[in-house]
């Protein structure tokens, strides 16, 4: 599309993309996930306080209930996505070496994905009661 034979002007090719070359997608998603967490934070704190001082059986029962599982799943998805974007911004700001930057961004993706998947799996396991 944007090869030498393209009829698009150089300006049209870069317009709205910015220095990340992928446009404002991450900027927008960072804010969407932030709003999601701002809305979810009170229910999440209530859930955590509900679990204080309980043993595993009591905690598992609470965490396995449908509304609480959904609240936590939403919060986990929003937070891991948000922190992936946030840490990438930090890496891109401070890591100057290109190879190290790519490795760091990749490690960031792995970290956030592992945290997300492990937490989601744990909640689904608690919900299914196995």
């Amino acid at each position, binding site marked *: 599309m944007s090869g030498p034979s393209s009829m698009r002007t150089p300006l049209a090719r870069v317009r709205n993309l910015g220095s990340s070359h992928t446009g404002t997608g991450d900027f927008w998603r960072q804010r969407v996930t932030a709003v999601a967490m701002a809305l979810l934070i009170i229910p999440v704190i209530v859930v955590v*306080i509900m679990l*204080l001082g*309980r043993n*595993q059986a009591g905690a598992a029962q609470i965490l396995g209930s449908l509304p609480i599982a959904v609240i936590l799943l939403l919060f986990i998805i929003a937070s891991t996505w948000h922190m992936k974007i946030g840490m990438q911004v930090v890496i891109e700001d401070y890591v100057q070496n290109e190879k190290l930057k790519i490795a760091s961004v990749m490690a960031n993706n792995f970290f956030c994905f592992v945290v997300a998947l492990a937490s989601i799996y*744990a*909640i689904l396991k*608690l919900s299914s009661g196995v």
Partner: protein
Amino acid sequence: MALSIVHRATGIALYFGTLLLAWWLIAAASGPTAYANVQAFTGSVIGKLIVFGYTWALMHHLLSGIRHFVWDLGYGFKANEREALTWGALVGGISLTILIWIIAYAVGGGR
């Protein structure tokens, strides 16, 4: 006030703090022994300090983030408004943290 770096620092702290959250959920799904290990850690002095720090980082990052939203919407750029937002996030973050811990002890302490 150089608070934007605190927003970033609390964000990085929360990033690694999610490991604790993930560990806690995995332990709850794993069984009584694993869960008791988490409780032993969060009940220790160091564990409590970390969770307290995590609570503050979360509350500060939340309020500081709302401050960024105000700016995104095009408000709060005057010097006095910037000062007010900054102090609001700083004082609000500490106040909410203490409030949450008071409620946590009042509700969970008796169990």
